[in-house]
Structure formats: structure tokens, C-alpha cells
């Protein structure tokens, strides 16, 4: 019986792997082709039947492409932009998502729908008004102007809200949390009772939640 089960499981494993590899190949194929054609000249790209590999790789394509424009500057701009908006969006999404998930306040669900509704308007619509606004603020052609409109991502707020909601409520309420601090210590430090995280950090419920999520996603059932 167990032998049959094992061979069946092995067959299922092989099938899953074959499927996964096939999918990975379909995912990779366009990239491989992109790589291959990047080393061809124009005539070769449009040949039929298509060639999978270039006759003789033209590495100078890359040299030409990279020196055609000041890419160093472009990459720096992208880097500054990405750094700023990641910090900004993490902060605003975590705080707002937490409020929507864990606080009961008047008009919460309506406000959330209002937040969400800003996702539903196509970006082209706010393009001109935003430009006028940035111009009125004197931020045209500055990093401030580039970054300022992107510091909040409603998508991220929604994501955070959903994940905070999956955390059981009992865990966050005052009396159970106080009595379960020991449980948290045990989970976090292997039951040694040794306090590594300073008290003021643990006392901030928000941070405790964050750490729990990170350390032991499976620890939630401890309280339920």
C-alpha cells in the first residue's frame, strides 16, 4: 500500500516538475530570443525561416546602444527615483494599510473605497492636471517634482491591508497580548526567555506584529 503511494507521489512529482520546466521555458523563450537577436544585424533578424542563433555574434551592437545616449545619467536618475519612492511608499502603505485593517473608525470602509477609486481612473487623465500642479509648485525638472507624485501607492495600501487582516485580531488586543508576551519570547528566542528585543520595541504593538510576521508566519495559531 505504502509502496503504491510512494510511486504515485513520485510520478506526481515528476509530472509537476515537467510542467514547471515547460512553463519556465515558455517564460524564458522570449528573453533568449531577445538575447539572440541582440547579437544579429538587421538582415538576419528578419530572415525566414528564423535563425535561433546569430551567424557571428555582433557584440558591437551593445557598444553602439550604450554609447548612443548618456545611460550613466539615466541609470542614476532611475536609481534616485526608485530609492525615494520605495521608502515613501513603504511608509505610507504600511501606516494607512494598518489603519484600514485594524482600527474601527467612522467611515472607514467608505474612505477605503475612495482610496481604491483613485486606482480606477486611468493615469492619462491626471497627467495634465498633475503637470500644472508641479509647475505651480516650481518643481519642473527637479527630482522633487519627479518623486513627489509617486510617494503613495494605493495598490500597496490595499496589499498591506489584506496582509494585516490575515493576522488574527485576538493577537493585537491588549489583555491577550500582555499574557502572550512570554509566548512571543519563546517563539522568537527559542524559549530561552532571553530578551534580545528592547522593551520599547516590543511594547509597540505594530512592530511586534511586524516581527512576528517575519519570524514565524506559522506562529499565529498559537493563540487561536
Amino acid at each position: 500500500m505504502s509502496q503504491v503511494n510512494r510511486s504515485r507521489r513520485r510520478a506526481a512529482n515528476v509530472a509537476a516538475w515537467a510542467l514547471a520546466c515547460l512553463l519556465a521555458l515558455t517564460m524564458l523563450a522570449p528573453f533568449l530570443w531577445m538575447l539572440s537577436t541582440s547579437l544579429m544585424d538587421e538582415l538576419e533578424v528578419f530572415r525566414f525561416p528564423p535563425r535561433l542563433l546569430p551567424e557571428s555574434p555582433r557584440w558591437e551592437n551593445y557598444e553602439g546602444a550604450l554609447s548612443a545616449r548618456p545611460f550613466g545619467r539615466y541609470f542614476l536618475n532611475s536609481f534616485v527615483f526608485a530609492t525615494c519612492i520605495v521608502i515613501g511608499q513603504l511608509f505610507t502603505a504600511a501606516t494607512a494599510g494598518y489603519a484600514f485593517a485594524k482600527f474601527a473608525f467612522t467611515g472607514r470602509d467608505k474612505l477605503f473605497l475612495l482610496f481604491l477609486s483613485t486606482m480606477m481612473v486611468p493615469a492619462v487623465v491626471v497627467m495634465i492636471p498633475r503637470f500644472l500642479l508641479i509647475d505651480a509648485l516650481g518643481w519642473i525638472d527637479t527630482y522633487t517634482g519627479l518623486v513627489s507624485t509617486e510617494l503613495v501607492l494605493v495598490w500597496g495600501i490595499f496589499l498591506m491591508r489584506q496582509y494585516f487582516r490575515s493576522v488574527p485580531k485576538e493577537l493585537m488586543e491588549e489583555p491577550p497580548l500582555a499574557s502572550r508576551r512570554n509566548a512571543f519570547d519563546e517563539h522568537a528566542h527559542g524559549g530561552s526567555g532571553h530578551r534580545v528585543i528592547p522593551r520599547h520595541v516590543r511594547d509597540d504593538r505594530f512592530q511586534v506584529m511586524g516581527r512576528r510576521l517575519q519570524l514565524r508566519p506559522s506562529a499565529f495559531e498559537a493563540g487561536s
Partner: protein
Amino acid sequence: MEYLITDVGRVRLAVLPYDQTGDPISKVVVLSLLGLLLAALPVALTGLVDQPRAFRRHVVAWSFLAPASVHLAIFTLGPLAIAAWLSLHRWSLIDVARPFVGLANYLHVLGDSAFWNAIQNTVLFTLHVPVSMAIALALAIIVQRRARGIVFLRAILFLPTITSLVAVAMVWQWMLHDEYGLFNWLLSKIGIGPVAWLSSPSTALLPIMIMATWMVVGYQMILFQAGLAAIPSDLYDAARIDGANPWRRFIHVTIPGLRHTLFFVLVTSVIGSFQIFGAVYLMTEGGPLHATDVAVFHIYEEAWEYFRFGDAAAQSWVLFAIIFVATWLQFRTLERRVEGQA
């Protein structure tokens, strides 16, 4: 107002320098909206002063919400108010006269068959969302196991998400090319005649849907994976002890455990899919014969090809209404059920 005269080809244009295009009314609209929002908050809070606990909770909640709310009010709601204002005008970049026309733009949009054709294409396109979600969930479950090389597979599946849409669209265009494309070459190997993927009105939407699925499964997979990781493994053990087979474990443990993630992915993917623009713009430009003309592309053309900003703004609001109703329905029908199971 001073205009610059420029010749573009055979057309002579009177161009208004953009520092003079600022509409004083739009500033008033934005500022009054902001003022209204800021005034509403203290009013709402003072009503709660006699209930200290509720008052404290509201103040804490609002201090958490403040950064995102203030930003949204300034950089999104304000511009939206201006867009609403535009939709009531015949407003064009190149025409100085911008008369107030009331709801005429909306009436025009409602009777515009080309716009409804675009909406219909958008709805058809959105049908790829459940398919991609099913594939992504299957992938997430496969990729979740601990096995050698699994990290590599995960990275490969996520690759399309982090690649520039422009590069991806160009490669797909090549692969779908009627004469030189990879797909038709492969089909010819097994004796199937060339398919006019992107150049025939009857098929053109399908390759775009396939490409969209291809691009989005990796991202959905990552979200599902995060959700799967949060399902307590004890639940699976308990189900196993109760004699549940893998399918029943999937239905009774995995799906309920993933409900918040599933809901999130569904809502955001439908919203994103209703706003499909880049792929269409890069691959077909709405053609052939408007077969792939989708809502946002239609709005883009209206504004930037025909310079009818008033019409474009009105169309945007109609599209917004459609997406809003679709999202609201999902909240009404699905999130209640999600809550019921909690």
C-alpha cells in the same frame, strides 16, 4: 494672453506657452477641495470628544492615515477634480476657445459606438484575469515545495514582471510576425498554415491576452506564495489526520487560507486589466479595424491625437464608473463571504 506662432509641416499653429495655460479656476477648485477635507476632519473628531475611548481611537487611526490621505488629496483627488472640470468643457490644447458645454460631452460619449466597441474589447480582454490567476495559483503551489533549483525556477517565472514592457512587446511582436515570426514557423513545422495573429481583426485580441497572462502570472504567483506561507502548517496536518485527500485539503485549507490574497489579486487585476494601455499601444495601436481598441487607448487617442480633452475626460469618467461598479460588486459579493468565513 500671448501666442507663439509655429509652423509644423503645412499647418500653422498658435501655441500658448504653458506658463499661461494655468486655469485660475482649477486652482480654486483644488484649494477649496483641500480646505473642505481639512475642515471635515476636526468637525468629525469634535463630535467624539465626550467619548474618550472612541476619540482616542479616531485620533490614532487618523494619524496613521494622514500621510497617505494628504498626499492623495493633493496629487490625485485635486487633479481628478480638474479632470472633472475639463469634462464639462470643449477643451483643446490648440483651440483657445474653451466654452462650457455642460453634460454635452457625456451625452456624446454615451452615443458613441466606437467608445462602446472599445469598452467591449476591454471586457473581453479582462477574461484573461481568471485564467492567469488559476495558472499563478498552480505555479505558486508547485514552487512552494522545497526542492533543488526551485529558487531558480521562481526567479525565471518572475522575470517578465520586472522586464520593461516595451522590450517585451517588441519581442512578442517579432514572435507573432505573420512571415518571420517564431510562432508561425513552429506551426509550419507541424503543417498548420500561417496564422495572421496581430493583423486579422478576428484574432488580434487573443495574442495580447496571452502576452498579458504571460507577463502577469509571475507577479500573481509571488503574492499567492506569500499568502500560502502564512497558512499554518498545523491546519494541513489536522486535515491529513482527518483523512482529507490533497484535493480536499486544497479546497478546505488552501482556498480559505488564501481568501484575503485571492480577493486582493482579483480586484487589482481586474482594475489593471480595465486600464490596459501599454501592450495595445505598442503592439497594434488599436488596430486592425479597431479590433484591439481598448478603453484607455481610445481615451488616449481622443486626447492626444484629436486634442479633444473634454471628450477624453468625459470618457475617463464613464470608464471610471464602470470600473467602480465592477469593484463595488466584487466587494459586495466576495468580501462579505470572505468575512463570513473568518
